């Protein structure tokens, strides 16, 4: 019996079958396995969070948002930083993971959180904290972050650190932050006879400037705005904050945008789109669309963060000198945001300490890592954008001086933005769900000439109240 089985199994047909089965099993096993072996703590460090990391500790850290090969200069700097870091910590292996497109894409990120397959040190947006904690994704690093492990800690804007805390516990360290403002195309401003050094600071001014720019013709729009993929609601919120309004009530239970200010925003957009025809015919735009228009000198203004300029220059081939920024119209408050790194929950104390040591070196030390402006200038990378801007006190002074010394762009183009700081304000609760509803207000007013601002806002108010009441 055994011999006959063996004989038959050796026939080519059966060998093929066995191979196919084995390959299928192997492929499935590979699909189901996403994490590598964890070899942290081999050097035997201290489990006391406040104790400094033993430089000889052997740890491997997987970290996302390593620049991809296409970003040669950034990747070169990353590798140089790893080498410099390894001089002090020779046994810490930085296993960088580069991702195509943006460092965090919501679909990929939420799936990774759900599968708990995020790297040891993972990149998030400020607004991700709740979902990360809901999924048990981040370690509490409060006890590990001190002025010994992060010397500039006292100079980090407490508002920025505040968005990375919940119930007094710290879950992340910032790498960048932004405040939204009015991004302008200086070339179009000049062509339209407007002063690019004084971007409009009110919506009346925006409307007037948009009309002048659109009059240039040739398919140029004066002002652009989003109305799809939840980004329309996001910009409506920014505009509302700028005028001093709010999206939800203070207790977070009711919609608060169906007000005179809310109507003013919608009516102004309607006037620009349909009366002045200064917003172009193509609507239902989302993040990325307006940048393309502005980079090709087809758009005069839109609400944006400073790093949109980097995107336009690096990805779309525009020039820094062609753009400038002013404060958000209204100037009462502005939507702020940013990104940070968190450390995977369940990481060993040594791994957490190693991660904090790396983040301190790479992202939180003036003159080092991302703040080594002289090196960035040599490598042809942009220096001079008003972002990140989370340092205060002596660190800010040092950072500003270093930045000015190596600026690669006309920093005076951002003077109006820098000289008129607007207080930052965080996103409303259930932000994405509310933005989805408010997208309808934006798409309604920008695609229908007969849109009724009152009706759009009233419908959205009812729906947002439903969203807030819906567990």
């Amino acid at each position, binding site marked *: 019996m055994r011999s006959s*089985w063996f004989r*038959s*199994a050796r026939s080519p*047909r*059966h060998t*093929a*079958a*066995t191979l*196919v*089965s084995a*390959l*299928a*099993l192997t492929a*499935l096993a590979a*699909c*189901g396995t996403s994490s590598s072996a964890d070899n942290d703590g081999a050097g035997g460090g201290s489990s006391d969070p406040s104790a400094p990391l033993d430089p000889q500790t052997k740890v491997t850290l997987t970290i996302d948002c390593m620049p991809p090969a296409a970003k040669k200069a950034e990747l070169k700097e990353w590798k140089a930083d790893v080498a410099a870091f390894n001089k002090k910590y020779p046994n810490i292996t930085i296993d960088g993971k580069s991702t195509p497109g943006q460092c965090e894409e*919501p*679909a990929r990120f*939420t*799936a990774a*959180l*759900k599968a708990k397959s995020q790297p040891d040190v993972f990149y998030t947006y400020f607004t991700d904290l709740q*979902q990360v*904690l*809901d*999924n*048990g*994704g981040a370690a509490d690093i409060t006890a590990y972050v001190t002025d010994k492990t992060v010397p500039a800690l006292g100079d980090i804007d407490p508002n920025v650190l505040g968005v990375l805390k919940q119930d007094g516990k710290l879950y992340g360290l910032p790498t960048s932050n932004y405040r939204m403002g009015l991004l302008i195309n200086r070339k179009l401003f000049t062509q339209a006879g407007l002063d690019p050094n004084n971007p409009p600071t009110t919506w009346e001014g925006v409307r007037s400037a948009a009309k002048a720019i659109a009059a240039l013709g040739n*398919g140029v729009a004066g002002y652009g705005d989003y*109305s*799809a*993929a*939840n980004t329309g609601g996001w910009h409506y919120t920014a505009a509302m904050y700028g005028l001093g309004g709010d999206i939800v009530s203070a207790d977070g239970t009711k919609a608060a945008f169906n007000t005179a200010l809310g109507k003013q925003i919608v009516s102004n957009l309607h006037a620009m789109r349909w009366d002045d025809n200064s917003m*172009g*015919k*193509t*609507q*239902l*735009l*989302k993040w990325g669309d307006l940048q393309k228009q502005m980079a090709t000198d087809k758009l005069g203004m839109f609400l944006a963060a400073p790093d949109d300029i980097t995107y336009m220059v690096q990805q779309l081939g525009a020039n820094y000198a062609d753009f400038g920024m002013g404060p958000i119209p209204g100037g009462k408050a502005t939507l702020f945001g940013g990104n940070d790194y968190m450390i995977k*929950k369940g990481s060993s104390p040594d791994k957490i300490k190693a991660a904090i040591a790396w983040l301190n070196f790479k992202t939180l030390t003036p003159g080092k890592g991302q703040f080594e402006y002289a090196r960035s200038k040599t490598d042809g990378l942009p220096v001079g954008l008003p972002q990140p801007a989370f340092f205060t006190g002596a660190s800010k002074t040092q950072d500003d001086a270093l930045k000015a010394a190596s600026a690669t762009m006309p920093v005076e183009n951002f003077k109006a933005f820098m000289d008129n700081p607007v207080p930052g304000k965080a996103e409303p609760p259930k932000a*994405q*769900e509310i933005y*989805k*509803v408010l*997208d*309808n207000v934006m*798409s*309604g007013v920008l*695609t*229908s000439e007969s849109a009724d601002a009152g009706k*759009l806002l009233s419908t959205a108010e*009812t*729906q947002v109240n*439903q*969203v807030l*009441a*819906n*567990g």
Partner: protein
Amino acid sequence: MSAPTLAASGESAGQRPGQPRRPRRIRANTSREGFARALRRNLSAHGFLLGALLCFAFFSWYPMVREFVLAFQKTEGGHTTWAGWSNLSYVFHDPAFWQAWRNTLLFTGLALVLGFALPFLVAVTLNEFRHGQGYLRMLVYLPVMLPPVASVLLFKYFYDPGYGLFNRLLGLVGLPEQQWLQSTDTAMVSVVIAATWMNMGGATLIYLAALQGIPGELYEAAELDGAGLLRKIWHVTIPQTRLILSLMLLMQIIATMQVFTEPFLLTGGAGPEGSTTTVVYLIYQYAFNFNNYGSAAALGLVLLVLLAGFSAAYVRLSRGSED
């Protein structure tokens, strides 16, 4: 003392007394060997089948089971707990829920009017060509071979109200510009037109194959009876392809109820005032923008139950075709 029963004596019903008992072990061994022989004979087939079964198990059946479980769970503070009906309650209380169903049904309805009838008419027309049919078949099927994203982006350019091809064509004949994707009235129709263009090639070929299976004598008999083109289609073509038409109808309903790619790329998903928000886009929003996998699974379950009804009908019709 009663006579021993056959069972008790170990004799089978057909066994005569005194006849030597057939050894059971031999029969069992024969059966086992037969099974082993059959197994060996079909080992390759089983091997190949195993791979497919494992793939289906991991990538189709397990996710379905997982979806069912997720629909009744909630993850908060790193802990997953049973949520009862709360995910379904969330879904039913979402202000976009009914709008998404209305839009999806509208898409399905319009897709049936355009995407079901048009390929059939094209197939009937192609079937009438005596020359160059292969070339025309290739032309009709060509859009199916284009990557869907490329096709959709092509239509996005065609529909653009500022510089799009369609408005330019309308302008050439003196007709007013249309808003296409940017109007609540025309957004869904525009999505359906793009989807039909992208997908009708496959349905056309299936109809064409069915048409070519109709015996020519039936048409000859109809012609002898004085039937014209329309009467031949009505009395010969449609009855002869009825089963294929029914199956395609069901398959199309199942496919169009799951529409996602076209509105997602053409209008950003929601469209003007949410007029192209579909059920699957809502599932996408729940899962990947709201991080609410429980509600995404719950809505997926609702869709699954509905489509299962159509699938059951499809299986029944398939069996009918085998008979």
